[in-house]
């Protein structure tokens, strides 16, 4: 092994090794969602994972996010082998290192937009003034008007809800944001605006984004495109 060689890439933020995930369907037939997948994601990437429906995109993102355990293989994020963590330490790891944006219904219905956005900060024990500061900052960056701050999710549009979810993921300063089809429920204009915003954030702050998507707009903006087919990587291209 070489150590500290100039020119050698630093330790990857995400290191997936020989990842296998086998589900059982309703009639207990094994379904192979991922079959021995290897993937490295460097810090600062803005990467899209695409591929046909059922190719394993969501499964891969969930395993990288520690939301599920692999059948075999390892997932290492920020130097931590997720398989070594108990449920509760894994939760704390997610809190401090990861942000999640799902397709829809990301928010806690009984909390207002503002309370949803500061949810992770409260769990982290960030002070009230600091919480206010970061949430207000993020909301204004994402174009969430002050009259929406106190609204519950049911009174927000799909695009507004997604923006609040992005704000929640961003305010806790994670190393990696995992976004599973974040634009699928949005009209193309709203989707495009949010994607530009995220790419802008990625450029300004270096936060790593990992998308799973079918959306050509996401694919167009990604700087690296990984295509899955039947639980394996079919192609992996860096783009301009």
């Amino acid at each position, binding site marked *: 092994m070489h150590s500290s060689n100039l020119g050698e890439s630093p330790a990857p933020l995400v290191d997936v090794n020989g990842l296998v995930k086998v589900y059982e369907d309703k009639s207990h037939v094994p379904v192979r969602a991922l079959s021995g997948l290897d993937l490295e994601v460097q810090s600062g990437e803005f990467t899209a994972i695409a591929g046909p429906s059922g190719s394993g995109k969501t499964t891969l993102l969930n395993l990288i996010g520690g*939301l599920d355990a692999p059948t075999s293989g390892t997932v290492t994020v920020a130097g931590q082998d997720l398989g070594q963590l108990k449920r*509760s330490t894994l*939760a*704390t790891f997610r*809190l401090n290192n990861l942000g999640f944006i799902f397709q829809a219904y990301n928010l806690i*219905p009984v909390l207002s937009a503002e*309370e949803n956005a500061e949810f992770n900060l409260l*769990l982290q*024990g960030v002070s009230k003034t600091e919480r206010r500061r970061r949430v207000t900052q993020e909301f204004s960056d994402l174009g969430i008007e002050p009259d929406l701050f106190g609204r519950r999710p049911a009174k927000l549009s799909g695009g507004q809800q997604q923006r609040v979810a992005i704000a929640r993921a961003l305010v806790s300063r994670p190393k990696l944001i995992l976004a599973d089809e974040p634009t699928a429920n949005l009209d193309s204009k709203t989707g495009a605006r949010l994607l530009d915003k995220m790419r802008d954030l990625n450029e300004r702050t270096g936060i790593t984004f990992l998308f799973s998507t079918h959306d050509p707009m996401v694919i167009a903006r990604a700087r690296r495109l990984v295509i899955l087919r039947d639980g394996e990587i079919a192609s992996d291209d860096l783009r301009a």
Partner: protein
Amino acid sequence: MSARAAWWNPRHFLVPISAVAAGAVDFLRTLQMLGRVAWRNIWRNPRRSWVLISAVAVGVFSFLGTLAYVDGFSMQLIDAAIRLQGGHIQIAGQSYFESPVIHTTVRDVQPVETAVQVLPEVEYLIRLAAPGIMNSADQAAGVMILGVDPARERAFGQVPSLITEGAYLSDTDEGIVVGAALAEQLRSQVGERIVLMANSLDGELSAAAFRITGLFESTSEDFDKTHVFLHRAEVQTLIGFADREATSIALFLERGVDASPLATQLRAALAGQDLEVLTWRDRSPLMVMMDETMNLANIILVVILFTAIGFTLINSFLMVIYERLREIGIMMANGVRPSQVRWILYLEAILMVAVGIFAGTLLATGLIAWWHANGLDLSAFSEGLRAFGSGSVIYPRVDLRHVATGYATILVMVSLAVAWPAWKASRFQITAALHHA
């Protein structure tokens, strides 16, 4: 420094202590947010919550009402027994309670009276006591002869109110009052003469004749068969007691006053006088046990009242966790720990129950206050009640220790009821929960 001596080094304890403190701070900080989610969750389905809250309120109301009634009734029973058996506090010569011989007496009642009179709202009776034999024309029975002050007995004693035939001793009367059961045993009637025989202080056999003026009937037939009442002066003459000598001084307290601190105060005031001060708790373990049994009966009452409510809670929380599957998944994905998921549900249940307890307590307080002012008149059943010696009007009694035990039992039951749904919720597979839209 040797390694052996280092184990107590405070630095060794600093790490675990600070870890525990940090854990506590972390817990309290997140509790605010978890509590907010829990509180709002209650009002998502107001109808369901109100049904639960009302059930708890009705349960608490029934519990407190029954408790106040049962405690009041049993306290009246215990109190009646205490009054019959010689008061809440008794003062006697040193070692009299252990071995009651007639030579062991309070030599001079004067300082004892002085010490008792400074206590607020305490009544007392001075008594002489000696064992003897009571003879009718053809029967005899062993009895405890009690020499009393009739005027004071009529004012504060129990026996004058228990007369079933004839009358209690008058101030000048030289008669005797005996239990109805004893009179029957000796085949004697009111107005007939009996002869009392007893050993006097100087060891001689002493005897005198008395006319029966009245018969009494208490809750205890045993007591009735073994206790007879005379003027104190008659007993002095019969046994040879001195003028200011007494066997015991019996103190009677207002209902609900704790005897122990007063007894302590008296012990201090009477120190060095060769006297013994005992409370009814010291003297009557049986009554103490009865008092303790009430506390157990309480817990059983709560368990019965709240078992149905507990099952309703289990049921509605099982519904709740499946209704909120998606958001539980979202919270866990964002870093909410399994224990925190459980806490949200515990807090939701506890807050809801707290509202119910508050409402039920408020209602019960109203009832008990009204009832305290008016009493519950059970004179329709007073024949039966008389046998218990409680009197025919029952007043509620709120024993805070019993109430607290009841509330604690409610909280334990609620926590047990929510434990299973909460555990289930915290074990959800996150991806499966997220799948649920």
